[in-house]
């Protein structure tokens, strides 16, 4: 006995207005969860009908129930759940045939189906008349005309759902003229299907047999019994030897039926898309199209870089004032440090991503819902194909210049998991904005006043980092595609939907949902890592250092200094103490321990501690070095910090920071995955710890080897 709330699915083609209808019906009260085992959002909402509560589930957009991966299997699984009582199939009236192809598969399964005929207004403007009554009787399922964006027809749809949920409601699947040989195949599969799903009705079993014939073979579906697979493989071989193609037989019979239904219910005039056609003539034009493309991409880039900055600064200064408040209010001690440097800093580390995530998802939502994202992929696919990426990988990669965290989240627009993973694992190599302060500190330290030809050496170094980052990212994608994620270049089979003006409410709702998921899931990991990192850089505290600095402090206070001079002396003493304590901490000792490994790439233990601290976020490298060198708070323009770096010496008296070791350090920061937030978000988006650990390992190894090459190669050439 299933006691769960009855479930009503909303299914439909991508771009059919399915999500708009879902939001209109649920009034924006949706909850987002995850389907078990896969990283696909499960968006659902509770709906109160006169007959009682039902759960409305937004099934991911699809053109067919046929599946070859667990992600594609979701739709059919949702259909098979025992508490699924009805399916609302959203059909875009302007692409009727393709929509009915999906609706037909749902109806064939025997589940009560309600066809929501969406965008009826757009269809009528095109001169397309659909006789919904005749259509309904041919389909054997009620058809309700709606305009989801204008909330038209929603009441009728809700009433129809209520009627369908009555226990006596039955759907009567139409008879598709499948060829005789195919019917024989189905008959051979049925016994195994009935053993697999003993509760299935005759219709369900038959529909499921068809599904198996389309889906099995070259698949990685889960939960299909071996017996079913064996028979299906037999049937495939047999058909091949007879020169038959069962895929073609099934799909062609369905489309023939759909064509016939459309002929009998629609006015003759073929649908045209004059508006979209005109727009596309410009937007995909060889010159104007590329120009507009570049402008739009630049707009996104600018928004992420500059537009988000004031908000990020505000969050950072709010974090700092909260920390100051806590320092003032709480007694000094470990608890205060935990709250200030662990918890408040951690929450700040999470929240600081919010502006970029919101902005990027508002942008992507706009591009996707307006139809332009498909054109972006269309225009740039030629370039992406070369490295084994999908055209849709472009926007995430570009966003990687700003920050890998929202960029990794943006890979959701890529449908296939393998393609998503390649993009997700390559894009953290794009030179994000958090690397910039590190570059600037290094450039200001080692290249001050130097020049290369007409250019300043610093500018050349900085520019080289960005070029290198693009080359390495594309190279990594190509290598990943040929090794770890081996597979063919993804096929590019993309609908170019008609241009439509997106709804602001939906854009906002979606961006907000994305952000909430990030804050809860990735945010928890980032907060935990901040606390761990704080502990590593704070403990154990050395009694000896504390006593030594207490004594020194007492000495200063006894000296006859002016108030200002005394305060100054005490402050620099405090900074020096923090540096000394850091050296005694786990992190400091670890820095010393790995120094032998850092020497060959030109670094010493102090840089090592900076690298450990930078795991919180790359720019933290700068402030960690400030503490290491006993300078206190420092930013990348800080003169004493630059001087301290220039004065730092290895044990043999040679300077640590030379132009060569500077370049080595920049290359290291460019390539190493010094960012726990990236790790956290890849964990969330890939669904397991395996991929973030792989990402961290390969980037660290790559960074080390590249720095080694730069430093040792440079020395051989006599550069350092």
């Amino acid at each position, binding site marked *: 006995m299933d006691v769960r709330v009855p479930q009503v699915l909303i299914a439909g083609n991508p771009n059919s207005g399915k999500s708009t209808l879902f939001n209109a019906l649920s009034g924006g009260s949706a909850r987002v969860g995850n389907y078990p085992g896969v990283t696909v959002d499960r968006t659902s909402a509770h709906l109160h009908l006169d007959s009682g509560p039902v759960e409305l589930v937004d099934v991911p957009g699809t*053109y*067919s129930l*046929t599946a*070859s991966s667990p992600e594609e299997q979701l739709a059919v699984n949702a259909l098979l759940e025992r508490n699924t009582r009805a399916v609302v199939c959203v059909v875009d009236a*302007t*692409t*009727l*045939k*393709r929509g009915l*192809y999906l609706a037909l598969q749902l109806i064939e399964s025997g589940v009560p189906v309600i066809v929501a005929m969406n965008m009826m207004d757009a269809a009528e403007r095109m001169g397309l008349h659909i006789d919904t009554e005749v259509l309904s009787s041919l389909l054997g399922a009620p058809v309700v005309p709606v305009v989801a964006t204008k909330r038209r027809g929603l009441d009728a749809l809700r009433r129809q759902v209520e009627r369908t949920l009555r226990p006596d409601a039955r759907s009567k699947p139409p008879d598709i003229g499948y060829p005789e040989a195919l019917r024989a195949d189905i008959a051979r599969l049925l016994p195994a299907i009935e053993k697999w799903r003993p509760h299935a009705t005759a219709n369900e079993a038959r529909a499921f047999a068809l599904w198996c014939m*389309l889906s099995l*073979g*070259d698949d990685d579906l889960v939960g299909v019994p071996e017996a079913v697979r064996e028979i299906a493989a037999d049937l495939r071989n047999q058909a091949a030897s007879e020169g038959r193609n069962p*895929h*073609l037989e099934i*799909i*062609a019979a369905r*489309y023939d039926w759909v064509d016939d239904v459309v002929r009998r219910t629609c006015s003759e005039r*073929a*649908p045209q*898309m004059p508006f*979209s*056609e005109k727009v*596309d003539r410009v937007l*995909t*034009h*060889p*010159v104007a*199209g*590329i120009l507009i493309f570049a402008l739009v991409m630049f707009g996104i880039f600018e928004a992420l870089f500059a537009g988000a900055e004031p908000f990020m600064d505000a969050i950072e200064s709010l974090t700092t004032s909260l920390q100051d408040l806590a320092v003032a209010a709480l007694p000094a001690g470990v608890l205060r440090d935990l709250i200030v440097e662990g918890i408040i800093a951690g929450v700040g580390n999470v929240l600081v991503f919010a502006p970029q995530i919101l902005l990027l998802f508002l942008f992507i939502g706009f591009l996707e819902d307006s139809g332009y994202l*498909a054109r972006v992929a*269309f*225009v740039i*696919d*030629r*370039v992406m*194909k070369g490295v084994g990426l999908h055209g849709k990988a472009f926007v995430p990669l570009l966003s990687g210049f700003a920050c890998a965290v929202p960029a990794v989240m943006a890979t959701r627009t890529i449908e296939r998991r393998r393609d998503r993973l390649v993009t997700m694992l390559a894009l953290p190599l794009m030179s994000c904005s958090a690397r910039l302060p590190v570059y600037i500190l290094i450039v200001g330290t080692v290249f001050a006043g130097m020049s290369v030809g007409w250019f300043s050496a610093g500018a050349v170094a900085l520019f080289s980092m960005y070029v290198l980052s693009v080359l390495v990212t594309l190279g990594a994608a190509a290598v990943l595609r040929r090794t770890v994620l081996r597979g063919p270049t993804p*096929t*590019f*089979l*993309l*609908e*170019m*939907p*008609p241009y439509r003006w997106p709804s602001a409410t939906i854009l906002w709702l979606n961006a907000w949902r994305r952000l909430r998921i990030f804050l809860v899931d990735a945010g928890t990991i980032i907060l935990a890592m901040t606390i761990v990192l704080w502990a590593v850089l704070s403990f154990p505290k050395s009694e000896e250092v504390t006593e030594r600095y207490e004594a020194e402090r007492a000495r200063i206070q006894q000296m006859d200094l002016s108030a200002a001079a005394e305060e100054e002396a005490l402050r620099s003493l405090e900074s020096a103490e923090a540096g000394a304590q850091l050296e005694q901490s786990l992190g400091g000792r670890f820095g010393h321990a790995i120094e032998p490994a850092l020497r060959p790439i030109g670094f010493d233990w102090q840089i090592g501690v900076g690298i450990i601290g930078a795991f919180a976020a790359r720019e933290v490298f700068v402030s960690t070095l400030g503490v290491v060198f006993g300078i206190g708070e420092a930013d990348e323009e800080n003169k004493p910090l630059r001087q301290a770096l220039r004065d730092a010496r290895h044990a043999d008296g040679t300077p640590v920071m030379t132009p060569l070791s500077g370049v080595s350090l920049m290359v290291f920061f460019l390539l190493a995955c010094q960012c726990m937030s990236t790790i956290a978000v890849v964990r969330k988006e890939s669904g397991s710890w395996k991929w973030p650990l792989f990402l961290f390992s390969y980037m660290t190894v790559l960074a080390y080897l590249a720095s080694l090459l730069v430093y040792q190669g440079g020395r051989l050439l006599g550069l350092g």
Partner: protein
Amino acid sequence: MTPSLADLRPGQTGEIVSIDCDRPIARRLMEMGLLPGTEVRVIRLAPLGDPLELRVRGYALSVRRAEAARIAIRARGM
């Protein structure tokens, strides 16, 4: 030699004769409505020459040249 969809220039129409792609790709193409007997028009090429935008069964679909080259057609109005 039978012409393929990749041989059509923008504005030209053809009728699909057969699809000779790998099984999963052929299946996806067919499910998107490209079947033997279906009429397809090439609307335009992407600015860099690949992929192609097609009109099929009343909607627009883009496919790469590599796939289009394996879809045999009977040309119309060439």
